[in-house]
């Protein structure tokens, strides 16, 4: 057997020359680690150390509270009762929720809210984005005006619109009165309150959708449009068969972000109607807030939060899958 050692040209100095067996494999002297492996191991440890604070912070502030709330969701605990202790009830909180009229109602209202707001935002946002990228006159000014709602915090927007919607002294009723429409009750009407709240949501979030879609449109290749024009396609055909398919990934991302955001709505509803009149505008986030932070029914609120989280996760998963499908 030939055991003659051969020095490999790429080996680095370790103090002892590495050896290569007759089979060609590197044979390391006992007790010695090559510099390359050493350095890799050291770099890995250094990177772990750099990441550790962020990971620990994330674990403590996000993962641990999340898991703790999951645990609490299996307990019954009214913290407003002094010296009360959590009592294990298993899945009872979840079972109660699916029969709870208030919870079911708030889920329905939230779905209507999200569906209506996001759909209208997408349609109007697409229209505005096409206009904004069309080079039409005054679009510069329009783009600037569109920024105003974005500059307002939702709380301020809520106060502003609460004043505008006032049934007696509000500007909206004054303006519609000028064209002969009778004054409406808006936020005081069970049939008008939810549409009014949705209107404010659209007013505030439409600019986001517009700007993202406009950026997407501007990044589309011009050649496709020129080819379509040469082929004699109409504007609608170009929009339907060129713009929309090419913009699909952007649309999916916008929809995903807006849906997740709309589900979490709280401040606008809080300022405008506080869930009323009755409970016609009580979205799920408000119900969870009320149950957990006003009534301190911690177990119930945790169960609601987890159902909410699972629901949003399922919707997000669907959109991300669509996005990945499009990419592939």
């Amino acid at each position: 057997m030939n055991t003659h050692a051969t020095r490999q040209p790429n080996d680095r100095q370790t103090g002892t020359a590495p050896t290569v067996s007759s089979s060609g494999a590197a044979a390391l002297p006992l007790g010695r680690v090559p510099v390359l492996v050493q350095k890799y191991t050291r770099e890995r440890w250094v990177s772990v150390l750099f990441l550790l604070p962020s990971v620990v912070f994330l674990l403590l502030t996000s993962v641990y509270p999340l898991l703790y709330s999951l645990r609490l969701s299996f307990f019954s605990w009214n913290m407003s009762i002094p010296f009360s202790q959590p009592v294990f009830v298993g899945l009872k909180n979840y079972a109660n929720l699916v029969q709870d009229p208030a919870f079911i109602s708030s889920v329905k209202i939230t779905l209507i809210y999200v569906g209506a707001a996001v759909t209208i935002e997408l349609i109007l946002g697409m229209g505005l984005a096409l206009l904004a990228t069309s080079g039409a006159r005054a679009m510069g000014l329009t783009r600037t005006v569109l920024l105003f709602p974005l500059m307002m915090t939702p709380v301020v927007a809520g106060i502003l619109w609460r004043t505008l919607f006032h049934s007696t002294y509000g500007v909206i009723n004054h303006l519609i009165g000028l064209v002969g429409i009778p004054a409406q009750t808006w936020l005081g009407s069970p049939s008008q309150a939810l549409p009014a709240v949705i209107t404010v949501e659209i007013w505030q979030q439409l600019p986001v959708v517009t700007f993202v879609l406009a950026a997407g449109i501007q990044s589309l290749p011009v050649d496709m449009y020129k080819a379509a024009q040469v082929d004699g396609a109409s504007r609608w055909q170009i929009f339907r068969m060129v713009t929309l398919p090419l913009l699909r990934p952007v649309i999916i991302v916008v929809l995903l972000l807006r849906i997740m955001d709309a589900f979490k709505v709280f401040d606008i509803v809080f300022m405008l109607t506080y869930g009323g009149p009755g409970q016609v505008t009580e979205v799920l986030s408000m119900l969870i807030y009320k149950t957990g932070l006003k009534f301190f029914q911690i177990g119930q609120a945790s169960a609601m939060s987890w159902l909410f989280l699972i629901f949003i996760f399922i919707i997000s998963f669907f959109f991300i899958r669509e996005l990945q499908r499009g990419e592939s």
Partner: protein
Amino acid sequence: MSNLKQNQMSRREFLRLAGVAGGVAALGSLAPQALAAPRWMPRAAKQYEGVTLRVLNQGGVAYEAALKQFGLEFEQLTGCKVELDGTPWEQQMPKIQADLASGQPKYDIFVGDIEFQYTIYPALMPLNDMIAKYNYDMEGFFEPVYKYGEGVAGGLTGQRFGLPIRVGACWVFYRTDLIKEFPTTWADYEAMLKENTGGGKYGLAHAGVAAQLVKIFLARYWSMGDPLLTEDWKPLINSEKGVKAVEMMLNQLKNYCPPGMLAWDNPDASNAFLNGDVAVLEGWAAFILPDLQNPEKSKVVDKWSVAAFPEKGTGNFTQHNMDILNTSQNPDAAFEYIAYCTGMINAKRVLMEFNEESPRKAVWSDPDVLKEKPFLPGVAAAYDNGKPFTPGMPQWLEMFIGLAEGLSAAMSETQTPKDALDGVAKKWVDLIEQAPPSWAYKE
């Protein structure tokens, strides 16, 4: 009405107070046995120099200005700074609970509805010893302050956790130019409302958001004679009388109230009365009393008065108490500040200067007060018979909001009055079962 003081007190006022304080201290030191000096006056100048008291109080109420002004005066007298954190009523419970749960509570004093005590009493310092130590004057309060101001959750009898800065119940303000004699029965009341509705004007306004409907309901329900619960804690609100009270509210809302009122809060309803758009306002005095005689804000100057609800109805009696958190590092300073705010020395100022309802009945019949507010005796008589919404139990807030939401559902006609009240009754039963009281319910 007199204007609020803006910043610091005048030099004359400061010297007067300092002189009284010094005189009292001198008398007390000379003959401590002979004279039971009221020691709730600051005893020595600047004895709390370097101390800062942090106060969590309800924001947006008339007495907030009083707390601020008294805080400035207290600082000048004792050196103790007072920092106020005014918070909307809706946020008070979450805020104080979060502060207590943090493990490092930062507030010394909590000021709010007495009902909050029913939940946070383990964190409050009983004041009985402090009241004795400083010879705090407990005379002259309205009866409910004594009857309902001690004990919590059926126990801790005799323990007082707070001293009231204001009391209140729902008042009925009415236009004296439109209504010559205020009706004393509900039937006549409705007839009067009908007479004053038309031509863009309305008979009645009140806050229509859920939480504010409770007092409107109670004024009608309690006038029919029944309590909210039986002695063994079974709800009575969904009885025939409860349904009748809600139907009365609904009928008045639909026929005699401005449209959209279900979205109105207290300031909106007050504005409607100040603008002369309605003949009657049912509401908290704190939101309108300061402006009624101000020609810049009111179109009904000298054209209004107050009346009792028909058939001896009364909204829930409230008391806003000043409590000391037992984690306070400065309990003596905290108590002396509370004594300064709530004591007899400033009770008249609370009523006259800040247009807030002083809890000291004694000052309501003061000649100076009566000269400016001749309507007060009628209100005072009603207050002595007032009763709070709930018994002292920790679940009070959820019971209150449950009733509020049920009433709002009935008013918005998303539920019938009977169904709405049945839902509330069921919720109350479930809540009471979470911590069944061991004592009989009584109002």
